[in-house]
Protein backbone atom coordinates (compact mmCIF):
# COMPACT_ATOMS: atom_id res chain seq x y z
CA UNK A 1 0.00 0.00 0.00
CA UNK A 2 2.64 2.51 1.10
CA UNK A 3 4.98 1.60 -1.76
CA UNK A 4 2.44 2.66 -4.38
CA UNK A 5 2.34 6.30 -3.24
CA UNK A 6 4.68 8.65 -5.11
CA UNK A 7 6.12 10.65 -2.21
CA UNK A 8 8.25 12.83 -4.48
CA UNK A 9 5.15 14.01 -6.35
CA UNK A 10 3.35 14.83 -3.09
CA UNK A 11 6.36 16.76 -1.81
CA UNK A 12 6.60 18.62 -5.12
CA UNK A 13 2.94 19.63 -4.98
CA UNK A 14 3.19 20.85 -1.37
CA UNK A 15 6.37 22.84 -2.01
CA UNK A 16 4.89 24.31 -5.23
CA UNK A 17 1.85 25.56 -3.33
CA UNK A 18 3.99 27.03 -0.53
CA UNK A 19 6.48 28.74 -2.87
CA UNK A 20 3.76 30.17 -5.11
CA UNK A 21 1.86 31.55 -2.09
CA UNK A 22 5.06 33.11 -0.77
CA UNK A 23 5.91 34.72 -4.10
CA UNK A 24 2.34 36.02 -4.39
CA UNK A 25 2.52 37.64 -0.94
CA UNK A 26 5.89 39.23 -1.81
CA UNK A 27 4.56 40.53 -5.15
CA UNK A 28 1.46 42.03 -3.54
CA UNK A 29 3.45 43.72 -0.79
CA UNK A 30 5.80 45.18 -3.41
CA UNK A 31 2.77 46.53 -5.28
CA UNK A 32 1.68 48.02 -1.97
CA UNK A 33 5.03 49.79 -1.73
CA UNK A 34 4.08 51.58 -4.95
CA UNK A 35 0.48 52.48 -4.24
CA UNK A 36 -0.18 52.89 -0.51
CA UNK A 37 -0.62 56.49 0.65
CA UNK A 38 2.02 57.19 3.29
CA UNK A 39 5.34 56.04 4.72
CA UNK A 40 4.05 54.18 7.79
CA UNK A 41 1.40 52.17 5.96
CA UNK A 42 3.92 51.19 3.30
CA UNK A 43 6.34 50.14 6.04
CA UNK A 44 3.82 47.89 7.76
CA UNK A 45 2.74 46.33 4.46
CA UNK A 46 6.27 45.56 3.28
CA UNK A 47 7.45 44.17 6.64
CA UNK A 48 4.63 41.66 6.94
CA UNK A 49 4.56 40.69 3.28
CA UNK A 50 8.24 40.00 2.86
CA UNK A 51 8.64 38.19 6.17
CA UNK A 52 5.77 35.80 5.51
CA UNK A 53 6.79 35.41 1.86
CA UNK A 54 10.36 34.53 2.80
CA UNK A 55 9.15 32.04 5.41
CA UNK A 56 6.81 30.31 2.95
CA UNK A 57 9.39 30.14 0.13
CA UNK A 58 12.08 28.73 2.41
CA UNK A 59 9.81 26.14 4.02
CA UNK A 60 8.69 25.05 0.55
CA UNK A 61 12.34 24.60 -0.37
CA UNK A 62 13.03 22.60 2.78
CA UNK A 63 10.11 20.27 2.08
CA UNK A 64 11.18 19.75 -1.53
CA UNK A 65 14.78 18.72 -0.79
CA UNK A 66 13.84 16.52 2.19
CA UNK A 67 17.35 16.63 3.67
CA UNK A 68 17.83 17.13 7.42
CA UNK A 69 20.75 19.53 7.07
CA UNK A 70 18.90 21.74 4.58
CA UNK A 71 15.81 21.69 6.81
CA UNK A 72 17.91 22.80 9.78
CA UNK A 73 19.45 25.71 7.87
CA UNK A 74 16.05 26.75 6.51
CA UNK A 75 14.52 26.77 10.00
CA UNK A 76 17.44 28.83 11.34
CA UNK A 77 17.00 31.40 8.54
CA UNK A 78 13.26 31.63 9.18
CA UNK A 79 13.70 32.11 12.95
CA UNK A 80 16.35 34.80 12.54
CA UNK A 81 14.43 36.70 9.87
CA UNK A 82 11.31 36.62 12.05
CA UNK A 83 13.33 38.11 14.92
CA UNK A 84 15.23 40.77 12.97
CA UNK A 85 12.67 42.09 10.46
CA UNK A 86 10.29 43.65 13.04
CA UNK A 87 13.22 45.15 14.97
CA UNK A 88 14.41 46.89 11.80
CA UNK A 89 10.86 48.07 11.07
CA UNK A 90 10.53 49.41 14.60
CA UNK A 91 13.81 51.36 14.37
CA UNK A 92 12.88 52.83 10.99
CA UNK A 93 9.40 53.78 12.21
CA UNK A 94 10.77 55.42 15.36
CA UNK A 95 13.31 57.41 13.38
CA UNK A 96 10.56 58.51 11.01
CA UNK A 97 8.45 59.81 13.89
CA UNK A 98 11.42 61.70 15.30
CA UNK A 99 12.17 63.16 11.87
CA UNK A 100 8.56 64.39 11.52
CA UNK A 101 7.76 62.34 8.43
CA UNK A 102 4.15 63.39 7.79
CA UNK A 103 1.22 61.05 8.35
CA UNK A 104 -1.61 60.45 5.89
CA UNK A 105 -4.46 63.01 6.10
CA UNK A 106 -6.93 60.47 7.41
CA UNK A 107 -4.63 59.20 10.18
CA UNK A 108 -5.87 59.94 13.69
CA UNK A 109 -2.82 61.03 15.68
CA UNK A 110 -4.58 62.31 18.80
CA UNK A 111 -2.87 59.96 21.24
CA UNK A 112 0.58 60.57 19.75
CA UNK A 113 0.42 64.35 19.80
CA UNK A 114 0.39 64.58 23.60
CA UNK A 115 3.47 62.39 23.74
CA UNK A 116 5.29 64.46 21.14
CA UNK A 117 4.54 67.64 23.06
CA UNK A 118 5.77 66.10 26.30
CA UNK A 119 9.01 64.93 24.71
CA UNK A 120 9.51 68.20 22.79
CA UNK A 121 9.86 66.16 19.61
CA UNK A 122 7.16 68.06 17.76
CA UNK A 123 9.24 71.15 17.13
CA UNK A 124 12.34 69.43 15.78
CA UNK A 125 12.82 69.04 12.07
CA UNK A 126 15.65 66.54 12.02
CA UNK A 127 17.40 64.14 14.33
CA UNK A 128 20.78 65.91 14.52
CA UNK A 129 19.15 68.98 15.95
CA UNK A 130 17.19 66.79 18.35
CA UNK A 131 20.38 65.11 19.63
CA UNK A 132 22.15 68.48 19.93
CA UNK A 133 19.31 69.82 22.02
CA UNK A 134 19.34 66.72 24.19
CA UNK A 135 23.06 67.22 24.85
CA UNK A 136 22.44 70.86 25.75
CA UNK A 137 19.68 69.81 28.13
CA UNK A 138 21.98 67.31 29.82
CA UNK A 139 24.71 69.93 30.25
CA UNK A 140 22.30 72.42 31.78
CA UNK A 141 20.77 69.98 34.22
CA UNK A 142 23.19 67.25 35.34
CA UNK A 143 21.81 64.66 37.70
CA UNK A 144 18.36 65.05 36.22
CA UNK A 145 16.39 61.78 36.14
Amino acid at each position, binding site marked *: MLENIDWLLIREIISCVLILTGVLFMLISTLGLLRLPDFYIRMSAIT*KGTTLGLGLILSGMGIYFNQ*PDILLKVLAIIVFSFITAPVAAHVVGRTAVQNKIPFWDRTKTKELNEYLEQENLGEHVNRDKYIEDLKKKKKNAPGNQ
Partner: protein
Amino acid sequence: MKTFVFHFIVAFTATYLFFSQADLPIPYNAETTTAMFLGILTLLWLSALFYNKSYFRKLPKAINLLLYFLKELFLANIKVAFDIVTPHYYMRPTIIALPLTVKSDLEITLLANIITLTPGTLSIDVRKDKKILFLHALYVKDDDIEQLKNYIKHGFERRILELTA
Protein backbone atom coordinates in the same frame (compact mmCIF):
# COMPACT_ATOMS: atom_id res chain seq x y z
CA MET B 1 14.03 28.38 29.27
CA LYS B 2 17.30 26.86 30.49
CA THR B 3 15.63 23.45 30.64
CA PHE B 4 14.36 23.86 27.11
CA VAL B 5 17.81 24.74 25.76
CA PHE B 6 19.32 21.78 27.60
CA HIS B 7 16.66 19.38 26.28
CA PHE B 8 17.05 20.77 22.76
CA ILE B 9 20.81 20.14 22.80
CA VAL B 10 20.37 16.64 24.24
CA ALA B 11 17.74 15.68 21.64
CA PHE B 12 19.80 17.15 18.81
CA THR B 13 22.97 15.32 19.86
CA ALA B 14 21.12 12.02 20.31
CA THR B 15 19.53 12.29 16.86
CA TYR B 16 22.84 13.23 15.28
CA LEU B 17 24.67 10.33 16.90
CA PHE B 18 21.95 7.87 15.94
CA PHE B 19 21.94 8.88 12.29
CA SER B 20 25.73 8.96 11.96
CA GLN B 21 25.86 5.16 12.34
CA ALA B 22 27.05 3.13 9.37
CA ASP B 23 24.06 0.81 8.69
CA LEU B 24 20.68 2.24 9.59
CA PRO B 25 17.40 0.34 10.00
CA ILE B 26 15.37 3.37 8.80
CA PRO B 27 15.98 5.72 5.83
CA TYR B 28 17.91 8.96 6.37
CA ASN B 29 15.71 11.90 5.37
CA ALA B 30 13.98 14.93 6.84
CA GLU B 31 10.86 13.14 8.04
CA THR B 32 12.59 10.43 10.05
CA THR B 33 15.12 12.80 11.63
CA THR B 34 12.44 15.37 12.54
CA ALA B 35 10.17 12.65 13.95
CA MET B 36 12.98 11.24 16.06
CA PHE B 37 14.07 14.67 17.30
CA LEU B 38 10.51 15.61 18.31
CA GLY B 39 9.99 12.21 19.92
CA ILE B 40 13.07 12.59 22.12
CA LEU B 41 12.03 16.15 22.98
CA THR B 42 8.55 14.94 24.00
CA LEU B 43 10.00 12.18 26.19
CA LEU B 44 12.28 14.71 27.90
CA TRP B 45 9.29 17.04 28.33
CA LEU B 46 7.33 14.25 30.02
CA SER B 47 10.29 13.50 32.29
CA ALA B 48 10.31 17.18 33.34
CA LEU B 49 7.14 16.44 35.33
CA PHE B 50 9.35 15.01 38.08
CA TYR B 51 11.98 17.75 38.42
CA ASN B 52 10.76 20.94 36.71
CA LYS B 53 7.00 21.44 36.96
CA SER B 54 6.97 25.00 35.57
CA TYR B 55 8.65 23.89 32.34
CA PHE B 56 6.12 21.07 32.07
CA ARG B 57 3.28 23.59 32.27
CA LYS B 58 4.84 26.28 30.07
CA LEU B 59 5.85 24.38 26.92
CA PRO B 60 2.23 23.84 25.73
CA LYS B 61 1.56 27.53 26.32
CA ALA B 62 4.61 28.50 24.25
CA ILE B 63 3.37 26.28 21.41
CA ASN B 64 -0.08 27.83 21.77
CA LEU B 65 1.45 31.33 21.47
CA LEU B 66 3.44 30.27 18.40
CA LEU B 67 0.39 28.81 16.62
CA TYR B 68 -1.79 31.82 17.51
CA PHE B 69 0.96 34.13 16.19
CA LEU B 70 1.23 32.23 12.88
CA LYS B 71 -2.57 32.34 12.44
CA GLU B 72 -2.65 36.10 13.10
CA LEU B 73 0.30 36.62 10.72
CA PHE B 74 -1.60 34.88 7.91
CA LEU B 75 -4.83 36.78 8.56
CA ALA B 76 -2.99 40.13 8.68
CA ASN B 77 -1.26 39.44 5.39
CA ILE B 78 -4.47 38.44 3.65
CA LYS B 79 -6.19 41.60 4.94
CA VAL B 80 -3.40 43.92 3.74
CA ALA B 81 -3.05 42.06 0.43
CA PHE B 82 -6.80 42.40 -0.19
CA ASP B 83 -6.58 46.12 0.51
CA ILE B 84 -3.66 46.54 -1.90
CA VAL B 85 -5.19 44.74 -4.88
CA THR B 86 -8.63 46.40 -4.62
CA PRO B 87 -8.88 50.04 -5.69
CA HIS B 88 -10.71 51.39 -2.62
CA TYR B 89 -8.90 52.00 0.68
CA TYR B 90 -10.56 50.16 3.55
CA MET B 91 -7.98 51.25 6.11
CA ARG B 92 -8.45 53.81 8.87
CA PRO B 93 -4.94 54.38 10.26
CA THR B 94 -4.81 55.41 13.91
CA ILE B 95 -2.03 55.94 16.42
CA ILE B 96 -2.76 54.07 19.63
CA ALA B 97 -1.11 54.45 23.02
CA LEU B 98 -1.19 50.97 24.52
CA PRO B 99 -0.57 50.86 28.30
CA LEU B 100 1.75 47.95 29.04
CA THR B 101 1.23 45.36 31.76
CA VAL B 102 4.45 43.52 30.93
CA LYS B 103 7.51 44.84 32.75
CA SER B 104 10.85 43.39 31.67
CA ASP B 105 12.78 44.29 28.52
CA LEU B 106 12.45 40.76 27.10
CA GLU B 107 8.66 40.79 27.36
CA ILE B 108 8.37 44.24 25.83
CA THR B 109 10.66 43.25 22.94
CA LEU B 110 8.65 40.09 22.34
CA LEU B 111 5.35 41.96 22.41
CA ALA B 112 6.60 44.75 20.10
CA ASN B 113 8.00 42.22 17.62
CA ILE B 114 4.78 40.23 17.56
CA ILE B 115 2.72 43.40 17.18
CA THR B 116 4.82 44.57 14.24
CA LEU B 117 4.19 41.29 12.43
CA THR B 118 0.44 41.06 13.08
CA PRO B 119 -2.89 42.60 12.14
CA GLY B 120 -1.97 45.78 10.34
CA THR B 121 -0.11 47.20 13.33
CA LEU B 122 3.40 48.64 13.53
CA SER B 123 5.04 49.46 16.85
CA ILE B 124 6.50 52.94 16.65
CA ASP B 125 7.89 53.95 20.02
CA VAL B 126 8.11 53.07 23.70
CA ARG B 127 7.87 55.85 26.23
CA LYS B 128 10.98 56.24 28.37
CA ASP B 129 9.38 54.83 31.54
CA LYS B 130 8.46 51.66 29.58
CA LYS B 131 4.78 51.98 30.42
CA ILE B 132 3.24 52.95 27.09
CA LEU B 133 3.80 51.45 23.65
CA PHE B 134 2.78 53.50 20.61
CA LEU B 135 1.26 51.57 17.73
CA HIS B 136 0.34 52.53 14.20
CA ALA B 137 -2.77 50.48 13.50
CA LEU B 138 -4.29 50.20 10.03
CA TYR B 139 -7.64 48.60 10.72
CA VAL B 140 -9.71 50.00 13.58
CA LYS B 141 -13.27 48.70 13.47
CA ASP B 142 -15.88 51.47 13.90
CA ASP B 143 -13.16 53.84 15.25
CA ASP B 144 -13.30 51.85 18.50
CA ILE B 145 -9.77 52.14 19.89
CA GLU B 146 -10.60 50.44 23.20
CA GLN B 147 -11.73 47.32 21.39
CA LEU B 148 -8.39 46.97 19.60
CA LYS B 149 -6.50 47.59 22.84
CA ASN B 150 -8.50 44.85 24.54
CA TYR B 151 -7.88 42.55 21.58
CA ILE B 152 -4.11 42.95 21.85
CA LYS B 153 -4.12 42.80 25.65
CA HIS B 154 -6.17 39.60 25.83
CA GLY B 155 -4.64 38.03 22.74
CA PHE B 156 -0.90 38.45 22.98
CA GLU B 157 -0.07 40.13 26.27
CA ARG B 158 -1.99 37.60 28.37
CA ARG B 159 -0.24 34.71 26.62
CA ILE B 160 3.21 36.30 27.08
CA LEU B 161 2.47 36.99 30.75
CA GLU B 162 1.39 33.39 31.29
CA LEU B 163 4.63 32.27 29.69
CA THR B 164 7.01 34.41 31.73
CA ALA B 165 5.16 34.56 35.06
